[in-house]
C-alpha cells in the first residue's frame, strides 16, 4: 500500500513538474483565462507562474523522484537545471528537464496524477476560501486555468461539435467498450456530496454571509413570485406560475414553511440533488452501476449545474431531472414490461411538463423520438414502445385541451397557447437566421462567452458529449436516447435568438453523455496502460470538472 502511495507520489511530482512547464509556456504566450465576478462581469485572469527562487527550488525537488527512477546519475539533472535556471534568470531549463523526464518516464500516468494533486490543492483552497479558513496554501489557480484556457478560443466550436455529434457516428468505432475501475454507489454518494458542497458554497458559506440570492431567475422571478404566492394563497399558484405550476406549488409550500427568502435558497438545492440522483438511476438502467456512479459524480459539475446556478434555471433543471427519471422508467418498461412502470413513466413525464412546460415539451419530443427509434430498432421493444408512445400522445392531447380550458377560465395563459406562442417566435427567428454565417457565429460566440458568463467554458463538457454521442450512435438504448435528444437540442440552439442559445443548450442531459465519454476513455486507457492508469485519468478529469464548477460557484457567491 505504502509502496503504491510512494509510486503515485513520484508520478504526481513528475505530473506537477509537467504542469509547471505547461503554465510556463502558456504564460510566455500571454494567455489569460476568463472568469465570472459578480461586480465586474467577466474578468480575464492573466496566466502567471509565480515561482520566485523558492518556487524554482521546489520545482527542482519535484523532479528528483522521477530522475532517481532513471538512475543515480540522473539525480544531478534537477540540480543542474536549477543552477542553469538561476544563472539564466529564467526557468526554461527546468521546463525542458520536465519534458525530458516525461518522455523517458511514464508520462501518461504522471500527467493525470499531477492534475489530481493540483486539483486537490485547488479544491482545498477554494473550500478554505469559501468557509473563511486561512490556510497557508499556495494558490494553484494558474495551474488549474492552464488546463483549459488554451481551449477557450475554441469552446463555441466545441459546443457546435457536440451539437453535430449524432452526425459523427459513422466516423466512430463500431464497438464501444465502457469500463470503469470504480464502483457506482460510492460515486453516487460523492455526487450527492458534491451537489451539497456546490449549493453550500453559493448559499451557506463565508462568501455570502447575508445569503444574498444568487442567479438571475432567483432574484427576478422566484423571490418576487414567492411573495405573490404567499399573498394570493394556493389559488394563485396557477395564475402566477402558469408555465410551471408544479414547481410553483413546491415554491409555495417551501415559502409557507421557510419564508420566501429561504424558500428560494432551498429551491436551488432541489434540482442539484435530484439531477445527480436521476442521472444515476437512468444511467444504471442503460449502462450499469459503474457508469451510473460516474453520471452522478459528473451531474453537479457539468454545464447544467453552472448555467443553472448562474441563470437560476431551477424549474428547467428540476423538469430535466424528472424527465431523466421518466427515461429510467421507460427503459425498464421497454426491457421488462409491467404496467406499473408504464404508468410511472407517464406520470413522471407529465410531472416534468407540470414543473416546466417548455422543458417538458422538449423532453416529450425527445422521448417520443426515443420510443419511435426503439420500436424501429428491435422487434421485442416494438409493442411496448408503440404502446407508450400512443398513450403519451393521448395524454398530451387531453392534458393540453383540459389545461387550455381550465387556464382560460382562470384568465391565465394555457399550455397550448404557451407552446403556440413559443413555436411562432421560434419559427419567425428560424426563418430569418442565416446558419453558420459570420453574423450567426457572432451570436453563438456571444451566447457562449458573454450570455452564459463563463458557465460554458469547461471544454470537457462538449468534448466528452461529442465523443459519447458519436460512439454510441443509434445502436443500443442509450444511443437511441441521447442521439435524438442531441439533435433536438441542436435544432433549438442553432436557430435560437442569441439570448436563448445558452438556455437551449441547457436542454440536454450532459451527465449521461459525459459519463459514457469518460467510461469509454477509461476503457481505452485500461486496454493500453492498465486499470490503475485508467483510474487516475478518470479521477483527474472528475476533479478538474469539480474544480471548474466550484470555482464558478465561488465566483457567483463572492
Amino acid at each position, binding site marked *: 500500500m505504502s509502496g503504491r502511495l510512494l509510486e503515485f507520489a513520484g508520478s504526481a511530482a513528475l505530473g506537477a513538474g509537467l504542469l509547471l512547464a505547461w503554465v510556463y509556456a502558456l504564460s510566455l504566450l*500571454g494567455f489569460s483565462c476568463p472568469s465570472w465576478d459578480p461586480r465586474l462581469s467577466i474578468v480575464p485572469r492573466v496566466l502567471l507562474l509565480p515561482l520566485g527562487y523558492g518556487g524554482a527550488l521546489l520545482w527542482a525537488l519535484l523532479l528528483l523522484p522521477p530522475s532517481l527512477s532513471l538512475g543515480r546519475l540522473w539525480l544531478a539533472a534537477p540540480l543542474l537545471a536549477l543552477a542553469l535556471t538561476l544563472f539564466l534568470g529564467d526557468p526554461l531549463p527546468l521546463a525542458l528537464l520536465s519534458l525530458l523526464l516525461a518522455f523517458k518516464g511514464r508520462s501518461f500516468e504522471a500527467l493525470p496524477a499531477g492534475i489530481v494533486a493540483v486539483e486537490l490543492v485547488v479544491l482545498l483552497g477554494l473550500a478554505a476560501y469559501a468557509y473563511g479558513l486561512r490556510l497557508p496554501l499556495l494558490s494553484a489557480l494558474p495551474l488549474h486555468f492552464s488546463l483549459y484556457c488554451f481551449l477557450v478560443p475554441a469552446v463555441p466550436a466545441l459546443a457546435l461539435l457536440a451539437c453535430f455529434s449524432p452526425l459523427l457516428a459513422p466516423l466512430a468505432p463500431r464497438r464501444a467498450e465502457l469500463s470503469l475501475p470504480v464502483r457506482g454507489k460510492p460515486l453516487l454518494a460523492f455526487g450527492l456530496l458534491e451537489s451539497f458542497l456546490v449549493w453550500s458554497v453559493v448559499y451557506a458559506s463565508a462568501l455570502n454571509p447575508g445569503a444574498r440570492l444568487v442567479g438571475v431567475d432567483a432574484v427576478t422571478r422566484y423571490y418576487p413570485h414567492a411573495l405573490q404566492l404567499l399573498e394570493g394563497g394556493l389559488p394563485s399558484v396557477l395564475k402566477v406560475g402558469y408555465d410551471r405550476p408544479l414547481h410553483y406549488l413546491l415554491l409555495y409550500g417551501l415559502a409557507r414553511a421557510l419564508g420566501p427568502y429561504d424558500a428560494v435558497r432551498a429551491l436551488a438545492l432541489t434540482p442539484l440533488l435530484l439531477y445527480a440522483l436521476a442521472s444515476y438511476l437512468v444511467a444504471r438502467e442503460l449502462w450499469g452501476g459503474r457508469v451510473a456512479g460516474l453520471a452522478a459524480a459528473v451531474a453537479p459539475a457539468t454545464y447544467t449545474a453552472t448555467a443553472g446556478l448562474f441563470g437560476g434555471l431551477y424549474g428547467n433543471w428540476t423538469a430535466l431531472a424528472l424527465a431523466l427519471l421518466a427515461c429510467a422508467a421507460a427503459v425498464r418498461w421497454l426491457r421488462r414490461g409491467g404496467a406499473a412502470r408504464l404508468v410511472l413513466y407517464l406520470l413522471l413525464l407529465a410531472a416534468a411538463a407540470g414543473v416546466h412546460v417548455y422543458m417538458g415539451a422538449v423532453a416529450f419530443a425527445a422521448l417520443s423520438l426515443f420510443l419511435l427509434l426503439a420500436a424501429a430498432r428491435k422487434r421485442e421493444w416494438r409493442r411496448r414502445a408503440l404502446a407508450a408512445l400512443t398513450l403519451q400522445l393521448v395524454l398530451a392531447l387531453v392534458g393540453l385541451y383540459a389545461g387550455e380550458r381550465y387556464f382560460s377560465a382562470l384568465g391565465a395563459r394555457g399550455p397550448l397557447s404557451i407552446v403556440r406562442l413559443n413555436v411562432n417566435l421560434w419559427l419567425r427567428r428560424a426563418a430569418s437566421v442565416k446558419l453558420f454565417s459570420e453574423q450567426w457565429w457572432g451570436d453563438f460566440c456571444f451566447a457562449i462567452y458573454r450570455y452564459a458568463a463563463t458557465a460554458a467554458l469547461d471544454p470537457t463538457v462538449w468534448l466528452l458529449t461529442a465523443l459519447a454521442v458519436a460512439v454510441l450512435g443509434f445502436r443500443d438504448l442509450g444511443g437511441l436516447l441521447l442521439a435524438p435528444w442531441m439533435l433536438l437540442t441542436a435544432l433549438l440552439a442553432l436557430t435560437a435568438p442569441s439570448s436563448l442559445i445558452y438556455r437551449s443548450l441547457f436542454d440536454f442531459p450532459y451527465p449521461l453523455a459525459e459519463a459514457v465519454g469518460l467510461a469509454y476513455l477509461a476503457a481505452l486507457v485500461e486496454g493500453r496502460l492498465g486499470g490503475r492508469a485508467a483510474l487516475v485519468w478518470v479521477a483527474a478529469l472528475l476533479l478538474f470538472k469539480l474544480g471548474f464548477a466550484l470555482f464558478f460557484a465561488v465566483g457567483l457567491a463572492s
Partner: protein
Amino acid sequence: MAVCALLAYVLSRYPGAAARYADFWSSGVRVNPLDARLLRPALVYAVEREEGGELRVLVLRTYALPEARNATVTVRVFGGDGGEGIFVFGERAPPGRLLACVVHAPAVVRVRVEVEVDGARVVEERWLGGP
C-alpha cells in the same frame, strides 16, 4: 468525407467571429516567473504616457493572497517643477486581474504607486523622464 466537408464549411466563418473575444484569452502580459514581485499581492506592470497628457498605470493583481478581492491603488505623481498630485482608486481586484488607472498628469517625471490589498502594501516607483 461529407461530414468533414460539412464541418469545414460550418467552421469557415468561425475565426472571424471568435476573434472579437480575443481579449478574454489573450492578455499579452508576460512576467518572468522568477520575478520576486509575483509573490507579493500586486505589481506595477507598466506606466505609460498617453496622448493628451494622460498617464496610464497598469497594476497586475497577482495570485498571492487569493482570498482578497479588493485593492486600493494610490498613484502619486511628481512634476519636474516640484508639483505633486495624488489619485486614489478603489478597485475590485480578483487574482490575475490587470487594473488600469488613468490619471491626468502632463508634466510628470516620477510616479510612485502604492497598492494595498487586504492590509498588505506594495510600493513601486518609476522615473519617466521629461514629458
